[in-house]
């Protein structure tokens, strides 16, 4: 039975799409059959980060509106088996998605034997974001270590607990996970960013992992590769840990402290 996971944040530009792409790819690498859906109608980002923008024929809106079948619209990833992308429409407006339509797409994916359906939410707390989280069984809340991002995540948690299908129907609540990304231990140490402990204390949900701020992320996105598939970089390691912890492995948190090199520099000058 497919689990539906929304990747959400409230605030924009915090790393939802980056996280959706890597999380989905990581789960597929473990052998699960995964679909990742771009809910950001009008912007279309996920297909770029996944490197399949030239292969989009039909998109999510076409399926919701009954203009294409789910099979026609799903794009199979070329690098990872069992990974499929449902792109957002660039040309349609946000109102093209309806709750029933989205529900039907999720039903179809369930019937198709998917293990996980990852929903990459648009920013905000309005209709688009609420649609992306409505059918969720679990939520990955993406936060940056800054006050406004944490506040928005708090807000979206409130909405998950009040406006999701599970909340409305009185089912078991959505399982909530925190991904703290763009974490820069130097700036945390300098007091310019919130520390992991403070964010976790305020949001009070389980920390899935910390992704360090890293240029490799942008580089990977520019070459159309989820960063988890790049070997030997910290952000990739961080996302692999996140997938492992999500699947129940108990791994210590990493990427929280200042690298030794820079500490060394601090003590002894250049």
């Amino acid at each position, binding site marked *: 039975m497919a689990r539906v996971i929304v990747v959400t944040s409230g605030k924009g530009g915090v790393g939802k799409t980056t996280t959706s792409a890597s999380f989905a790819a990581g789960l597929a690498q473990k052998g699960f059959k995964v679909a990742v859906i771009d809910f950001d109608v009008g912007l279309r980002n996920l297909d770029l980060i996944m490197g399949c923008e030239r292969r989009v024929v039909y998109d999510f809106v076409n399926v919701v509106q009954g203009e294409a079948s789910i099979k026609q619209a799903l794009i199979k990833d070329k690098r990872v088996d069992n990974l499929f992308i449902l792109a957002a429409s660039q040309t349609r407006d946000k109102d093209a998605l309806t709750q029933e339509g989205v529900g039907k797409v999720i039903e179809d994916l369930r019937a198709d034997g998917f293990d996980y359906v990852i929903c990459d939410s648009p920013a905000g707390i309005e209709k688009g974001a609420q649609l992306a989280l409505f059918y969720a069984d679990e939520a990955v809340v993406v936060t940056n270590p800054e006050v406004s991002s944490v506040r928005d995540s*708090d807000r979206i948690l*409130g*909405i998950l607990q009040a406006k999701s299908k599970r909340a409305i129907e009185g089912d078991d609540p959505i399982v909530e996970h925190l991904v703290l990304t763009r974490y820069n231990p130097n700036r945390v140490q300098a007091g310019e960013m919130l520390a992991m402990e403070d964010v976790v204390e*305020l949001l*009070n949900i389980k920390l899935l992992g910390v992704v360090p701020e890293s240029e490799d992320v942008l580089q990977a996105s520019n070459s159309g590769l989820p960063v988890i598939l790049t070997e030997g970089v910290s952000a990739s390691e961080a996302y692999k840990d996140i997938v492992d912890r999500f699947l129940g492995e108990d791994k210590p948190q990493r990427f929280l402290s200042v690298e030794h090199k820079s500490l060394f520099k601090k003590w002894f000058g250049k």
Partner: protein
Amino acid sequence: MSEVIALKGSVLSLSVLKVFSDDFAKVKAVLTNKVAQAPDFFKALPIVIEPEVSPLAPMFLAQLVELLHQQNMMPVGVRTADPQLIEQAEYAGLAVFEPVKVSAEKVDKADQADKSRAASSAASADTPDQGALMVKTAVRSGQQVYAKGRDLIVTAAINPGAEVVADGHIHVYGKAKGKIFAGSNGNRQARIFVQQLDAEMVCIAGLYQMAEDIKPEYKQGWVEICLQQDRLVFNLL
């Protein structure tokens, strides 16, 4: 001879309904929807109407009063300086309040409160005489909890941007960073007890203090807040 009546000045806290549209159908739709989300909150709520548009159709105010009654609220007055509206208000049997000039900062905060109230999705009390309303999970930004006619006990955090409101006392076993309103129906005996106070605002029966005016020594551990002669008094416990 014992006193039969006494006339006293008193500061009451009333809810103000701002009306930004002159389209009655629209106002009706939005208001009905909002009430449906938390009918208990609005039940018997005294309301002062403050139109922010003019001119209004001659029957607008009368229709709105009728609608408020239908929705179980208690329209008591109109806040306006518009002579036409004052005339309509008198005709409708409503008191007229003078508009107050508030500082920009207060308008902002009032707006914020309005918004979070509108977005309120958290639990509200159902029936009175059940003891305190218990809330065991964090009250999050944008959520409001209202314990109507009773006390409120929160055994988790009240996060920044959240509001907890009770007609009675409020007890918080946790960190309180949002806004806390005790005695919200005007009960000046209501008290607030907080394990760790770092609130954006505390308020008892309409008298409030903002975060920057709360002394740091009261932010260390258990504190009790009560109202004495129109002043909020803080006691470490």
